[in-house]
């Protein structure tokens, strides 16, 4: 204990609410007197009343700063008390603080500054002095140290050593439990089943905008909630499915990520594109009575025609395939049998003058069926270009939904997988679909002799409500006849 701290100065307090000064009526003690704690030492008159002020400390009176009759400002020193008089005489410099304090009181404060102890002036603990209370603390824009990194929402990076709770944390009160929320977060288990899915409002909005049914999704977000990514993935699948995807061509390559060892069965959730495909196929298969027919045909002349086509100067850079001639054959045949290019509408049949020719394309995202709008209006060259563009766009995954809507007749080239042909199921709203089998060399009776020829099998499925066996057979036969002798067919029907 240093001698200086032995001597304490008592300053005139604000004795009422908002008083600024008081007049000393009478000192009740003299310098050298020993005072007890709470012993009255001075009588002061304020604007409101005359009051006796008790001693704040026990000890010996060292200094009395004002005479009776003086008016003293609140906050000015009144009396100095040696709180430990038994410890020996005070050093020469002991009463020093009083002089400094007095000077501070007498000198007018700098403009804007307020004296210590007065309202608006500095107070202990970094506070501002006020009339009632300890005064407001000055604020700092500094966050308390956190043990768990910036937040639960952010990946916690290694904290710099400074930020670790060390000596600082000792002084800081521990982070209080999150008492913020008057309501506990809704427990998931208590949620009534009727509430359905968990998804934040913006995700619901997104789903609504994209036409995604949230109840069909499995959420990957927190607490099994559906995230924005879940919706967008489902929407992408929907777009594919809306193009008329058929179950026969949908690759089932998805394997569950974590499959328990020894498990001999595994399950794939029926959702998204698979679910929509299934619904479409069931709806089509059980509403449109399907008839399938097959026609095996020698397409050697078509392949030769393609070779000649490729040799033509205009066609140097054009990608041509047997599918191009099949498409042309279909378009020519549809012009002869427009009823094949139609759809069933309950109490009427809608026959279309235009052909939006769907071409099934296998892509990484699965099978999609974009169509070539008004394909019947196109020249062969334009048709070739359109098909090339369509396939390239599909393989790049950039097919627009509009390109997949409104198809009127579809060709599916299952031959690329090496099979003879198939019995495709109609895309909803179309009356017929043609399957092209693989083209391969086979023994074939040609001009009375068995020769090796390029042969394929065409398969067609049609809606028997619209198309009778006769019409379907004639149509299929025309397509086959075109492929057997394209030049003659074009001359006759083109």
């Amino acid at each position, binding site marked *: 204990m240093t001698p200086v701290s032995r001597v304490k100065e008592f300053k005139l307090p604000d004795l009422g*609410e908002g008083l600024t000064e008081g007049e000393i009526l009478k000192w009740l003690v003299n310098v050298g007197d020993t005072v007890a704690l709470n012993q009255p030492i001075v009588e002061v008159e304020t604007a409101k009343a005359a009051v006796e002020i008790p001693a704040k400390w026990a000890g010996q009176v060292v200094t009395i700063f004002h005479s009776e009759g003086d008016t003293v400002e609140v906050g000015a020193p009144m009396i100095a008390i040696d709180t430990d008089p038994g410890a020996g005489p005070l050093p020469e410099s002991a009463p020093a603080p009083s002089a400094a304090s007095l000077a501070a009181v007498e000198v007018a404060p700098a403009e804007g500054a307020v004296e210590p102890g007065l309202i608006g002036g500095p107070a202990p603990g970094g506070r*501002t002095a006020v*009339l009632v*209370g300890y005064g407001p603390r000055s604020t700092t824009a500094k966050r308390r140290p956190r043990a768990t990194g910036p937040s*639960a929402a*952010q990946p916690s990076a290694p904290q710099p050593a400074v930020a670790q709770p060390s000596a600082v944390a000792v002084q800081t009160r521990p982070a209080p439990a999150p008492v913020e929320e008057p309501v506990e977060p809704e427990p998931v288990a208590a949620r009534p089943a009727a509430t359905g899915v968990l998804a934040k409002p913006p995700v619901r909005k997104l789903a609504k905008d994209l036409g995604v049914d949230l109840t069909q999704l499995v959420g990957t977000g927190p607490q099994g909630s559906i995230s924005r990514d879940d919706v967008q993935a489902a929407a992408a699948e929907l777009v594919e499915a809306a193009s008329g995807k058929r179950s026969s061509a949908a690759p089932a390559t998805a394997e569950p990520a974590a499959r328990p060892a020894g498990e001999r069965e595994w399950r794939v959730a029926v959702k998204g594109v698979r679910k929509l495909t299934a619904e479409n196929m069931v709806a089509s298969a059980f509403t449109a009575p399907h008839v399938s027919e097959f026609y095996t045909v020698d397409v050697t002349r078509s392949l030769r025609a393609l070779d000649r086509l490729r040799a033509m100067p205009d066609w140097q850079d054009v990608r041509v395939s047997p599918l191009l001639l099949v498409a042309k054959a279909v378009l020519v045949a549809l012009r002869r049998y427009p009823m094949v290019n139609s759809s069933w509408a309950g109490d009427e049949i809608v026959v279309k003058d235009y052909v939006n020719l769907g071409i099934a394309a296998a892509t990484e995202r699965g099978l999609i069926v974009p169509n070539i709008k008004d394909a019947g209006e196109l020249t062969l060259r334009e048709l070739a270009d359109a098909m090339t563009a369509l396939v390239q766009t599909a393989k790049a995954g950039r097919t627009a939904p509009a390109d997949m809507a409104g198809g009127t007749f579809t060709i599916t080239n299952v031959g690329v997988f090496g099979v003879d042909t198939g019995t495709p199921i109609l895309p909803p709203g179309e009356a017929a679909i043609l399957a092209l089998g693989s083209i391969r060399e086979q023994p074939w009776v040609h001009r009375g002799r068995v020769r090796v020829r390029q042969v394929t099998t065409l398969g067609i499925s049609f809606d028997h409500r619209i198309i009778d066996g006769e019409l379907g057979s004639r149509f299929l036969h025309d397509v086959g006849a075109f492929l057997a002798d394209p030049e003659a067919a074009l001359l006759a029907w083109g």
Partner: protein
Amino acid sequence: METLTIGKALNTGLRRALEDDPKVLIMGEDVGKLGGVFRITDGLQKDFGEDRVIDTPLAESGIIGTAIGLALRGYRPVCEIQFDGFVYPAYDQIVSQVAKFHYRSQGKVRLPIVIRIPFGGGIGAVEHHSESPEAYFAHTAGLKVVSCASPNDAYWMIQQSIASDDPIIFLEPKRRYWEKGQVDVDGAPEPLHSSRVIRPGSHATVAAYGPMVRTALDAATAVAEDGRELEVIDLRSLSPLDLDPVFESVRRTGRLVVVHEAPSNVGLGAEIAARVTEQCFYSLEAPVLRVTGFNVPYPAARAEEEYLPDLDRVLDAVDRSMGW
């Protein structure tokens, strides 16, 4: 442009109102000779006289009742309620008379009364000196309620309130009286009943008023180190609320934290949360969260720092919102 504390800006604004309109009166406990316990009316009685800056008896009901009579006779009384907790004796006069006169007179009589209340805690005071009674008044049709949070707003909003023909409860953030800021004494003020984005940000919106605006700004500053940008909105007007800037902000950030000292139960934050949920439902990435005082009586001074929302509680709420 001058640099003033909020207290001095209020004092200057009151002085200017007294100069501009001889019908403006100031009345309250110790507002005259003493200049108010917070010195907000310091020097005004000396310069404008005892007839215009009036020391009243310690009777809040009488202060407001007298003000009603003066207003009916064409004066524009500016009443100081010394501390928030002292307003309750005047509550009947305020909600039964002040709020209803315009309606009762079929629009013929308006009461241009301003009731200044230093409100909120943070000064370590005793009981009745740290309350936040804004919801009582915002709930009452016929009253307007505003709160300033900066010296510039203090200077202008007090003058706008005095100029208003409607009764206005003017809430002053008493613990911020000594915070300094720029005051544009010659500029044009914002409309009185408008809220304002005072710090732009993109990750979450924090709406506050009065003393909590500083807390929200501090929170935004502190969290900027984490790379997060909080948008801070000073609501300024509590009745009527101007929530269009809040809606616009929430549609961008998807998250809202409302901060006030008053308890959460049936408070301003609840009203704001309801309206934001209604207007911005599809934009909300998380529920509107409130950071408020607790639903208990205002605690003793030594415990008030546990009660009052601070920077860390605001940021905890922001974390909860971001983690939703």
